[in-house]
C-alpha cells in the first residue's frame, strides 16, 4: 500500500546573491554596515505554490507544464530532496527517483564498480546487488566495457548502465523526469519493454514530460502546472488539450 499526500505545499527557493557567497564580503559588509558590497541579499523565489495532491495505488500521474512551471521541483519535493517551506507532505512506500539519470557516476571506477556503488546508494545490500548483477550486465550489452573505467564510455553507454541499474530496483513509488530516449533504435525497443515492466511493478508513478505520447502511453491522469501552482488536474486528454489552449499558453509568461 503506497500513498502520497500533499497538502498546501509551498516551496521557496533561496537565491543567494553572488556577493553573499563569500566570507570576506560578508565580514566586510558586517563591518561597514552593508555599504560596500553589492549583489548581496537573498531572494526567495516561489517554486511551488499551495500544491494539493492525493495519490494512491494504481495512480499514474503525468506532470505537464511550460519550462519553469515547477514539474521537476514537485518531483524533487516528492522524492524528499527538497523539503517544503510550508504545508504537509506524507509519502508511504519505497521511492525510486530518477531525476537526472546519468548523474552520480564515479568516472575513474569501472562499470561493474559503478553498478555496486549505485546499488548501495539506492539502498540495496551487497547480496541483493550480487543477485542481480549478471542480469544487469547482460541487459546493458556492454560486455568487456564493464571492466573499463566509465570515463571512456560514450553518453549512450552511460545511459544504458544507469538505466539497467535503475530498472532492476523494486520500487513502490516511481518518480521520473523526462523518460529516457537515447541509444540506438534496437536498444530503445528493448528498453521500452523493460521500462513497461518496471513501471507496472510500481504502485504509484509520477512522470514529468514534454512529450504528449509519453503522457498518453503511461499515465491515467495528468496535472497541469503553471508558475508553480496547479492550473488543472484531471483526465489525460482533457489536460493535454488545455495545455495547448490559449487559456493556458497566454498566461504562462513568467511574471
Amino acid at each position, binding site marked *: 500500500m503506497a500513498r502520497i499526500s500533499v497538502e498546501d505545499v509551498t516551496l521557496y527557493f533561496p537565491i543567494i546573491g553572488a556577493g553573499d557567497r563569500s566570507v570576506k564580503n560578508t565580514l566586510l559588509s558586517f563591518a561597514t554596515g552593508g555599504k560596500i558590497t553589492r549583489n548581496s*541579499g537573498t531572494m*526567495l523565489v516561489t517554486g511551488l505554490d499551495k500544491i494539493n495532491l492525493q495519490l494512491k495505488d494504481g495512480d499514474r500521474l503525468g506532470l505537464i507544464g511550460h519550462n519553469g512551471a515547477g514539474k521537476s521541483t514537485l518531483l524533487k519535493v516528492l522524492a524528499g530532496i527538497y523539503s517544503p517551506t510550508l504545508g504537509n507532505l506524507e509519502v508511504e512506500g519505497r521511492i525510486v527517483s530518477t531525476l537526472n539519470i546519468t*548523474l552520480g557516476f564515479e568516472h*575513474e571506477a569501472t562499470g561493474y564498480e559503478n553498478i555496486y556503488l549505485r546499488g548501495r546508494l539506492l539502498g540495496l545490500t551487497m547480496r541483493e546487488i550480487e543477485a542481480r548483477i549478471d542480469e544487469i550486465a547482460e541487459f546493458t550489452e556492454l560486455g568487456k566495457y564493464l571492466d573499463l573505467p566509465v570515463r571512456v564510455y560514450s553518453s549512450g553507454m552511460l545511459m544504458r548502465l544507469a538505466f539497467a541499474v535503475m530498472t532492476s530496483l523494486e520500487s513502490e513509488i516511481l518518480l521520473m523526469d523526462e523518460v529516457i530516449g537515447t541509444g540506438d533504435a534496437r536498444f530503445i525497443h528493448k528498453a521500452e519493454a523493460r521500462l513497461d515492466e518496471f513501471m507496472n511493478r510500481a504502485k504509484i508513478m509520477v512522470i514529468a514530460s514534454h512529450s504528449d505520447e509519453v503522457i498518453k502511453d503511461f499515465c491515467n491522469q495528468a496535472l497541469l502546472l503553471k508558475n508553480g501552482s496547479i492550473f488543472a488536474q484531471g483526465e489525460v486528454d482533457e489536460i493535454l488539450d488545455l495545455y495547448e489552449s490559449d487559456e493556458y499558453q497566454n498566461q504562462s509568461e513568467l511574471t
Partner: protein
Amino acid sequence: MRDTTERPDAVEAGTVKLVGTSFEKTVSEVSELLNSESYYQHMSQAHNRLWRRPGQSKDCGLFKFNKYRRLMKNRVKLALEDMLDVIKSSQLCLFLAWFDIRVRYRRSKLGPFWITISMAIFIIALGVVYSKLFKMPSAEYLPNLATGYLFWTMIATTLIESPTIFIENGAYLKDMKINQLVFIFRALARNTIIFLHNAAFIACVCIYYQIWPKWPVLLLIPGMALVILNLFWITLLFGILGARYRDLAPIIQSLVQVLFFVSPITWLPKLVGADSWVLKLNPITYFLDLTRSPVLNQTPEPCSWIIASGICILGLAVSMVLYAYKRDRIVYWI
C-alpha cells in the same frame, strides 16, 4: 460590505481575501484565519506572489515564539535521526570509503605504497637535517616527527576536504534523498584507512629505534576515537559553511599551512617550553598529544583529555544545531 475591491492586486497576492457579503462566508473565513495557524501563516506570508526579500515581516508577532520553538524542536529531532541513521548505515560509509581508496590508487602502479614511500623520504630527510639543527639525537627526534607528521596528515587532509564535502557530493544530494552525514563519515573513514595504511611507516621507525609497544599504546584507541569525533564536527561545520560561503575552502587551505608551522610537528613541545601559549592555544597540540604520545609509550597529559573532550562537546553541540537548522538548505546551496 461589498463584493468588489479597490485593491485587486492584494487579492491576487493573497494577503487579503475577497469573501463577499455573505454572513456565513465572512464568519467562516475569519474564524479559520484565527484558528488555523498554517492558514494564518499562509495569508501573512503571501504578500508577494513570486519574489520576496527576507525580513519582510516573515512572522507576525503572536505566533512567532511558539512556532519557532516547535520548529526548532522538530529540526533537532530530524538531525538526531540522521545521526542514528548514519550509525546504522556505517556499512555503507565503509563501502564508499573503500571504493574511494580503490579508485584513487588505481592509476599509480605502485598503488597506495607510493604515497607512503614519498612520505617516508620526506620524513627521513627532514628528520636528519632538523635533528642536527635542534641538536637532538635522531633516536628522539625522528620517531616524534614520523608519528606527528602522519597524524597531522590525517587531520590536515580532513580539514582541507571539509569545506567542499557537500559540493563534491552534490550530484548525489541533488538526485536522491540521502542522509547528508553519510558523506562526512565516508571522508572520515577514508582518511582513517589511509592513515592506518601509512602507519606501516611508523612501525618501521619504531622497530628501527627499538621502541617496543608497552601498555600506554592501548590509550591510542580512545585517543584516536576522540580525535576522529572532533574531526567529525569540524567537517560538518565547515562543510555547511563551505557550501554557503564559497571562499571558505581557500581560507581553510591557507590556515592549515599556518597550523602546520605553529603545531609541534617538526619541532618538539619542550623546545618552546611546555607552558608556552603557542602550545596552550592550539587545539592541534592536544590532538597530537592524544595520538602521538601513546604510540611512543608516553601517557598523554590529563589536560589533553579534558580539553579535547571539552572542544568535542562544544563543537558537536554547535555543529549539530547548525546542521539541524540548515540541513534542508544545503541542497539549495550546492
